[in-house]
């Protein structure tokens, strides 16, 4: 074994012992049992992304692992009945709550929750005859409750996908239906026709160019900026929620978004000038026109009642 590997094993052993001492209920687990799990955690979350990880960083990372949650999961994996009892007693509400959020009815939620417990326990058997449950994938980095919610969510998505149903909110589906109907002209939301077909075509091309430029600019943004754009605009989250996903306060997210507006505008205009041969003023004006056009469409698409005949006549 190389010197580095030996050093790593030593650090791992010490970190395991500290973890066991931190745990309020270690459930008779020893370092020999826990070390393989911690080793895989280090390789997955630490060593993979940072080759020059120091011993201090490894030690600090191991000290952040949730000792009690990990010991509970490992004890359940080893078939400890008392641990299973504690797991179900403590996390039954969490699993059921997550199942309700992901299900349309109480019955479906109960069934989903039961499926999750079965998945956790393991329906398949390992080579040694023990059940192969999903608890083996819990690392202890996050809380056991959060992991269980994630498992419930993914199981629900999996079921929906298998039943060939799209998972989306009702508002989004209705909104998109309106958009599709509007674009295909099947609905009654008629807007005033463009006075000039050429002008309409030019506008459509401009909007297309803008969308392409926006796509390019957004893809070129940094991961954090791109994620903020996606969370706020694509997923429809509020700034407070988007900031929480990023791990920042709402005010920070707002400032970042304001900065991004300026940055995206500058880069979109630069692309339009470079690729379309427009002047800066033309690019700016195109952005303004496109924005105004989108606002008009949006306000009409969000109308609750279809336009009456008189209203449609007035719109013309």
């Amino acid at each position, binding site marked *: 074994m190389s010197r580095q590997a030996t050093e790593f094993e030593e650090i791992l052993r010490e970190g395991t012992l500290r973890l066991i001492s931190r745990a309020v209920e270690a459930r008779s687990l020893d370092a020999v049992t826990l070390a393989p799990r911690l080793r895989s955690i280090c390789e997955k979350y630490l060593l993979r992304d940072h080759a020059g990880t120091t011993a201090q960083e490894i030690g600090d990372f191991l000290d952040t692992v949730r000792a009690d949650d990990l010991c509970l999961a490992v004890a359940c994996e080893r078939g400890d009945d008392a641990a299973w009892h504690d797991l179900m007693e403590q996390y039954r509400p969490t699993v059921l709550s*997550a199942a309700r959020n992901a299900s349309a009815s109480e019955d479906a939620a109960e069934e989903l929750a039961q499926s999750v417990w079965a998945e956790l326990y393991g329906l398949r058997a390992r080579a040694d005859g023990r059940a192969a449950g999903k608890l083996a994938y819990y690392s202890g*980095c*996050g*809380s056991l409750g959060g992991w269980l919610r994630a498992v419930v969510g993914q199981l629900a998505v999996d079921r929906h996908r298998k039943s060939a149903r799209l998972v989306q909110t009702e508002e989004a589906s209705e909104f998109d239906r309106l*958009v599709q109907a509007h674009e295909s002209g099947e609905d009654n939301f008629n807007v005033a026709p463009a006075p000039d077909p050429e002008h309409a075509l030019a506008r459509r091309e401009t909007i297309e160019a803008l969308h392409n430029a926006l796509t390019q600019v957004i893809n070129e943004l940094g991961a954090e900026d791109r994620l903020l754009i996606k969370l706020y605009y*694509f997923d429809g989250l509020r700034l407070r929620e988007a900031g929480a996903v990023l791990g920042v306060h709402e005010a920070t997210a707002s400032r970042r978004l304001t900065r991004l507006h300026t940055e995206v505008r500058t880069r979109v205009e630069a692309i339009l000038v470079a690729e379309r041969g427009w002047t800066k003023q033309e690019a700016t004006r195109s952005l303004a026109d496109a924005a105004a056009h989108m606002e008009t469409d949006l306000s009409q698409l969000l109308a609750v009642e279809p336009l009456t005949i008189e209203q449609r006549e007035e719109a013309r």
Partner: protein
Amino acid sequence: MKSDFDQEMDSLLRGHARRARRAFEEAAELRARADDTSQSAASLSGGSMTHLDADELSAYAENALPAPTRARFMSHLADCDECRRSVTRLVLASGVANELEKRAAVAPSKVVKTPAWRERLVALFSPRAWRYVVPVVALAFVGIVSFIALRADRESKGVSGRAAKSTVSTPASDMNHAAGIEESAETQMANTETTSTTTTSAIGANNSTSTNAATTTAHAPSKPQQNGELEARTDSLSAEERKRPSTDSQPPPPIENKEAQSANAPSAPAATNNAAPSIAPESNNVRSLPTLARNQQEMSNNQQVTVQQSNAREANRSAMQSERGNQTDRDRLTQSDNATNDAAQGGAAAQAPKTKARREVRARNESETSPGARKAQPQDDKREKDNSNNVVETRTVAGHQFHREGGAWVDANYNSGQATVTVKRGSEQYRALIADEPALGRIADALGGEVIIVWHGRAYRIKP
């Protein structure tokens, strides 16, 4: 915040997002029709190539990842709608937004304090401020120095008077002069030849006698003593000496070892005496005895004054506290008397407030004298309340009725025999619970402390 937004860009990005979402959903629909299960199978296994697994999602949502790993996951989330929605659900369920708001609510007050304090300090030392600060500081300094000088002068006059009386005894103490200054001080305290020798022999001629002299002064009366009394005091000094730790690390040597004493003499006075720096390492030098005695007397008087002042302050403080308490009691009695007079025609009902007030005053006075009184008082109040109102403390929050029981708020629907889930505030379980049941968290927050709530047929004990 909203006013700073570029409204045009905001509209453009919203329109762009709508368009992109449509495209994504069309693609998803096509995938579903093609019955592509490759992504679904990968979603629940560990180490998925395309999606984050449950462990990675939950670790990201709880910000429990090293920075490089979190950056990698962030990059994936920016491009993967499914994982992004999953992590959003987890983040919102774990209450991260609330934690960030709490941290932000605490942080600004700390940030604001330091610059304001620094600014004030900078302003204080600014050239302009010095115009006003310097004279004030100078005046204060002059005043303090004058006060100390006057005080020292006053005391020295008193010491010199006593020292003049005791000069007769100094020749006798010359025999023990090598033992140190403290011997002479002790001699003068005794005020006779024989007593000085006795004192010296009892105490010893060492460094710590300066402290012992102070001790003697603090405990002994200031008036000159008769021989018998002096011997008794000497004995007590011996006992005090034994009790009190010596400032010197070594124990006082016996009187016979005068050489050792003289060798040890220099260090102690400097270590123990703050009020008379003149008594110092030069103890082996020949000094004028009256001066040395006067200095020693100053020191002992200063300490005596200090002790007396502290005793007086303690007495005043306790007197003020008792007076305040008495005043409060008098006020209450006055109020109850007034209430009684106002309802004089009510007869027995009018007597009740007065009786109750007197009972309370009596109870308070008793409780102040008894140990553990503070712990007893809340229970007394509760019992009084029970006795007077005949009801247990109850509260109704969000349609749930709670009563106070043993320091905890207990749901009226709670049955002690039913299974109870114990959750500690601030724990992961608690956060999970209130994320799932926010109303339960609001009830727990409204009541505070230990709470037993029956929620959807289950009993939860929320501990602080």
